[in-house]
């Protein structure tokens, strides 16, 4: 029960810290809209072409927006020593990682659920398969959050190479973008197998992320 209470306290702290500067979330949403505009300007206002490319563009921007958030995971907590304080107060690093995954998925990935209909509107798609798109979005955004957690934990002590963290996220998100975009664009009988593959990737990453991230955090703390 004590553990449960302390977990709730950590979650409460995360929410409080994030809503104190909630413009952070809003500016990521603005980044998403701006990205759509940039794609429209670079491709041209051809409606048919845009609605063909729309799902790929949305998923590309999702990965780019994930790249912006990976420093949010553990960097500040490591710099002011909070992560070590949480650890000595009885919460293991693995549980901290799981709490962070849950909170940062709500803060930085779930708001895009509102943006997907807006993107559909901007690209002139028909709204027939929007529920399918949202379902696949929830699965793939969870995978992207786990990737951002791994990358954020790996780059805690890296202050020489800016692009490395984004490269880690991008190189492991190749299968996600392949299967989620082709699941939306393919014929009806091919949708379920690809969702199953995505779910398989999700459970693999949910299983390995806590201990990989915790291992990297331990290395960072012992060498800081």
């Amino acid at each position, binding site marked *: 029960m004590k553990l449960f209470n302390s977990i709730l306290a950590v979650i409460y702290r995360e929410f409080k810290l994030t809503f104190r500067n909630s413009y952070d979330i809003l500016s990521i949403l603005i980044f998403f809209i701006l990205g759509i505009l940039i794609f429209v300007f670079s491709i041209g206002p051809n409606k048919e072409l845009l609605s063909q490319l729309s799902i790929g563009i949305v998923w590309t921007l999702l990965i780019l927006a994930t790249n912006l958030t990976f420093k949010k995971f553990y960097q500040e907590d490591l710099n002011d020593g909070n992560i070590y304080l949480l650890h000595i107060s009885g919460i293991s690093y693995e549980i901290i990682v799981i709490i962070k995954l849950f909170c940062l998925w709500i803060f930085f990935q779930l708001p895009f659920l509102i943006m997907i209909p807006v993107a559909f509107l901007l690209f002139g798609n028909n709204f027939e398969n929007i529920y399918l798109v949202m379902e696949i979005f929830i699965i793939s955004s969870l995978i992207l959050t786990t990737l951002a957690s791994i990358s954020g934990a*790996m780059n805690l002590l890296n202050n020489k190479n800016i692009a*490395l963290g984004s490269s880690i996220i991008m190189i492991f998100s190749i299968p996600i973008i392949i299967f989620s975009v082709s699941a939306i664009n393919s014929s009806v009988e091919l949708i379920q197998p690809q969702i199953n593959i995505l779910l398989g990737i999700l459970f693999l990453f949910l299983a390995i992320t806590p201990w990989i991230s915790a291992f990297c955090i331990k290395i960072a703390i012992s060498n800081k």
Partner: protein
Amino acid sequence: MKFFLNPSEFNRISNLLVKPLFILSFLTLTLGLIFALYLSPDDYQQGSTVRIMYVHVPSAWLALLTFMIMTIYSIIGLTFKTPFSFIVNSAIAPIGATFTFICLITGSLWGKPMWGTWWVWDARLTSVAVLFILYILIIFFKKSFHNIEVGEKITAIFIILGSINLPIIKFSVDWWNTLHQPASISKLSSPSIHLSMMIPLIIMTLAFTMIGLLIGIIRIKSEIAQRKQRI
């Protein structure tokens, strides 16, 4: 067994190994090139371009083998805390990158006359390109941390994560309908390649393995020497 894990033991035995390996790799490469360029027959469809295979296939095998060795050493290094495995990782990553690069270049040189294009976004080609990027990232990884021990450990974790790509490369030709042909030589069935082409291929593979081993040993020795100097 100590040869694989202990730097001083490695230095002692590799001093004995360098000269024989040099002679062997020279001999096998000469023999293999004579077989590949003069004695092996032309393909009835591909003509003389089939000879690209004798460079392409061995370098692809060695690119995969190098990554596998790095994965095994990373697991050993993280579990038993042996510093030698991190030395091996940082020494042989450029060799693997070079073999992957040779594989990609010869593949696209072979693809132009046969498929009519330098590059297709086919499963096998894309996954090998991802392998190349993984190698490049591994080389960069070590340089981006101030503390070298942290960089080594995190590189090892990244190598273990990246080894997901190896089975994807191996089975990509079976899982998806690709332009790239499936494997001609496998353990379970008799090879679908004629003996007159298989003999040069095997000799060239031996030669490439010898060259890779030789360069690997020299690089590991120089890495050990560099680290001794730094301490």
